[in-house]
């Protein structure tokens, strides 16, 4: 069985970068796949990788990470304008962040049209389309 844990943005909004990253990693280390509303800041993504490396052990083999975010290069002028307002209002709340334990998630493939999450447990493919 694969467990997904949804983390709404308001749960991490007021946290410092370190607390935000640690909160997400704690869930992942409980063998759950995090689906977080919004995205981490660039530096936080790097911090997440860094802290993950510090925690690696024979039991915890790391994470799979993917961020779904509107592809601005494929938007028309009006969509981009709306995006500017959305960014100003919502900040990092736009998009979705998926983080799973490497012992369960084999890989997450993302391209502009779809996200595919491959699990190790049952060797089956669960596909999510945005």
């Amino acid at each position: 069985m694969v467990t997904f844990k949804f983390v709404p943005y308001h749960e991490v909004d007021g946290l410092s970068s370190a607390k935000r990253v640690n909160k997400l990693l704690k869930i992942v280390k409980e063998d759950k796949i995090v689906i977080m509303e919004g995205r981490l800041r660039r530096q936080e993504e790097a911090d997440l990788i860094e802290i993950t490396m510090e925690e690696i052990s024979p039991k915890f083999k790391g994470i799979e990470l993917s961020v779904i975010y509107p592809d601005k290069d494929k938007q028309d002028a009006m969509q981009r304008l709306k995006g500017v307002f959305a960014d100003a209002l919502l900040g990092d709340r736009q998009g979705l962040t998926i983080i799973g334990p490497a012992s369960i998630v084999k890989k997450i493939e993302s391209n502009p049209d779809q996200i595919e999450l491959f699990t190790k447990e049952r060797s089956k493919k669960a596909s999510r389309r945005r």
Partner: protein
Amino acid sequence: MGLYGPPNGGKSTLANKICQDWLGEEMSSVSHIAHETREIKIKEQVNIKNKKGKELTFSLVDTPGISTKIDYEDFIKKGLKKTEAKKRAKEATKGVIDSIKWLDDMDSVVVVLDATKDPYSQVNITIIGNLQARNIPVLIAANKVDLKKANIEAVKAAFPQYKIVGISAKYGKNVEEFYEQLFALAK
């Protein structure tokens, strides 16, 4: 100038090619097993020249591949003994941490990607996003174009805002164009 990217993208092969071409010596060891480079390696005073006679001198930094997961059992599958595999995994985790810490020390970066693989991996996006956030100039080297599976157009589609050069560091294909782009990167 740093060489960054995921493991086994060809950073050390490219570092060796640059050093062989301009210093007449190698810089790093290479292997088909991932995480061969587990420590930051620096070659100072690399001086290159272009066709117009311009010269560019830089310190070349070969970094360990950045990854979100490291499983010692993967090294066992590649033929390493258990103790050796665990040691390599431990060193590899430290290498990833060092690579990230060194990002702040770079004046410019060549991101070396394996052009036969999916360019949309989050590691690639995270590396390039962090360089962008730090205002560090980036050149993307889409490596291994000698292989049939190489898809440089996919790399271009994934990172349309960056200059991308398709190369084969192993066989020296298109490295002249790569060297020319280093001058533009250093501006």
